[in-house]
């Protein structure tokens, strides 16, 4: 009994002490308004190849904007929508987050979006997902990139196309988008094959595709798993064109795919070929600034496209904050609404991977300037010569 009371006494002392300390912290910080930025990333689990660079980038985002201090609170959702929602509630209720950056996959972003709307917290997702009034996202939507790929197919005289994508919701979404855009361009989609991220073989799928003799194959996959189909196609001497989406654009994809990737066509953000951008390209200076900052912290050559999306979330936030800070003070509903309004009115904001022009109907705001077509030559991405 005594022991328990003693423990309780200690607990009380600690609670009191920390109360006093936080009180001090608050009075000390009162002069500078603090904007709380909640961050949800999938740094573990199946989407960690995107979540980890995004998490790394948060450390490089601005700490001070328009006289306000920025406080970042990072939570991990492991790619699980349920965990993401819980994280979002925690950020909203305990940390009084003014804005959310994340999450890093389509299903988690969709799950968090409903909470963002309910709590009136603006969200900048690092995945292209269907937006509502309070949600925005930085990566290029697949439709924007697909349109570029389909235009290239048409120019090369492709009339039949085989689709090979992940067996998940993203695979379904991209298949439907492909069929829609391709049929508008007079291209028939003659195969719909699926595989999983960790599959050890895609021989069967590739055999089926090749038995139908398509003019081109479109591999809709992200990161290193995108290399496996191309290795199999190359092994079986497929002679047609092979197309990839911007999700496949990273250094690891090049490393795993090796020489088999030579001659592929992929859509990418301008950051993928930053060294080839001309001086008059608006994205170039921001892209170089991002690469310098990231490489300085995480080692030369470590900056990738996924990290650039997170950097651009920081750019958007920094651009919208001054307007919102002028209207209301952080920690209030009025501030979050003002921040949302300011984000929606952003014009010609130059990021590391494109130029953003938001509107009430477009919460991504990227245009064709955020899209380049690339190929692989000698283990590096180079612009595709038309």
């Amino acid at each position: 009994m005594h022991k328990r009371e003693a423990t309780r006494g200690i607990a009380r002392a600690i609670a009191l002490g920390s109360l006093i300390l936080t009180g001090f912290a608050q009075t000390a910080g009162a002069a500078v308004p603090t904007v709380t930025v909640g961050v949800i990333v999938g740094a573990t689990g199946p989407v960690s190849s995107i979540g980890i660079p995004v998490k790394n980038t948060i450390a490089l985002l601005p700490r001070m904007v328009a006289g306000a201090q920025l406080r970042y609170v990072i939570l991990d959702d492991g790619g699980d929508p349920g965990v993401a929602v819980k994280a979002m509630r925690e950020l909203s209720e305990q940390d009084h987050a003014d804005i959310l950056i994340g999450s890093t996959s389509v299903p988690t972003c969709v799950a968090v979006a409903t909470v963002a709307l309910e709590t009136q917290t603006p969200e900048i997702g690092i995945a292209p997902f269907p937006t509502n009034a309070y949600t925005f996202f930085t990566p290029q939507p697949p439709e924007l990139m697909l349109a570029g790929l389909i235009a290239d197919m048409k120019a090369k005289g492709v009339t039949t196309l085989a689709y090979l994508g992940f067996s998940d919701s993203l695979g379904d979404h991209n298949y439907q988008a492909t069929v829609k855009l391709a049929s508008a361009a007079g291209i028939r989609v003659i195969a719909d094959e699926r595989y999983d991220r960790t599959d050890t073989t895609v021989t069967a799928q590739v055999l089926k595709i090749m038995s139908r003799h398509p003019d081109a194959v479109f591999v809709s996959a992200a990161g290193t798993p995108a290399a496996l189909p191309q290795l199999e196609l190359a092994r079986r001497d497929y002679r047609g064109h092979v197309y990839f989406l911007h999700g496949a654009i990273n250094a690891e994809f090049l490393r795993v795919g090796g020489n088999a990737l030579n001659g592929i066509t992929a859509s990418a953000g301008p950051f993928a070929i930053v060294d080839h951008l001309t001086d008059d390209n608006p994205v170039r200076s921001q892209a170089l600034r991002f690469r310098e900052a990231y490489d300085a912290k995480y080692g030369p050559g470590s900056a990738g496209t996924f990290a650039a999306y997170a950097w651009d979330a920081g750019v958007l936030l920094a651009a919208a904050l001054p307007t919102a800070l002028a209207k209301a003070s952080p920690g209030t509903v009025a501030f979050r609404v003002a921040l949302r309004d300011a984000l929606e009115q952003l014009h010609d904001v130059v990021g590391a991977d494109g130029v953003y022009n938001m509107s009430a109907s477009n919460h991504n705001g990227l245009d064709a300037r955020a899209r380049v077509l690339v190929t692989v030559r000698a283990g590096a991405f180079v612009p595709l010569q038309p």
Partner: protein
Amino acid sequence: MNPEIALLLLQDGLVTGSTYALLALAAVLLFTTTRIIFVPQGDLVALSGLTYASWEVGKLPASVWLLAGLAGLATLIEIIAATRSRRFRALPRALFTHAILPGLIVVLAVCVSARPPPLPLIARVLLTVALIVPLGPLVYRVAFQPVIAASISSLFVVAIATHFAIEGIALIAFGPEGVRAAPLLDASMTLGPLSVSAQSLLMIGVTAASAAALYLFFRLHMLGKALRAVAVNRLGARLVGIGAERSGAVAFLLSAAMAAFTGVLLAGSTTLYYDSGFMIGLKAFVGALFGGLISYPAAVVGAFLIGVLESFVSFWASAYKDALVFAALIPIMWWLSVRGHTEGIDDDEDSTL
């Protein structure tokens, strides 16, 4: 589908099946001798593949630190157990296997990694095997031996927890991106419409050799006979002086060795991720169920069947591939239950040990 495609699918299925067969053998070995459904077997395969790929690029694989950590933990457990029971006679031997031997391997790996790459092929393979094989007995010592008398379902829960631990460590150690290594044998020959790579022949060869070696070990070697005795009747084996603990460690050693070889071979033929192992292990487990988790030949046949089934199903309906492969469980379970409870392992009798 024409006969040529069918033949190509069969070839692909057999190569995949040989991987499953190696893992299915390990699953049966572990289940019969320890009653553990060892879920992380696939994770050890992934660890081995990632380790091998690290050596290829001349980097010290992060599995070194996993081995060092596990060895430290196991040593601590041994010392505490000896101090508590005040029986120090077995301690030197335990320290040798749990501290000195893994320590030597860690030191060797660190020294070798300081050398400029590239390492010769045989050194890469041997170093990978040396780093992965001790993980088996160490995982057994740390996670399973303290609760070895628990029921099959409790052991299964521990196995799942171990799986999540190993997978999480693999993510931290090796990162989220996939790796690939050069094949051990870079050659191929043409057989009619088939192009047969030397690597795939090697995979089937290693599976066949492992099955044969296991058979001979169980028939001819005293330790193998002891393992069989434990599998048939744990209580009886104990009464004639066969320690369940030691046989468990031996079984884990053998299964980790199989995982190590599988990983090295797989890394040379496909992209491996930190979480690749789970699916491979699960499919091998379905294969092993063909023999009710107690028959080696049936497990091998089942594993090859799963491999071929997967290949053909991928051709017909790739989007439903995994669902259809796991749906094969339903007829297997039905058949096993119709055949009745025969020489299966009796949980009740064992948990009283």
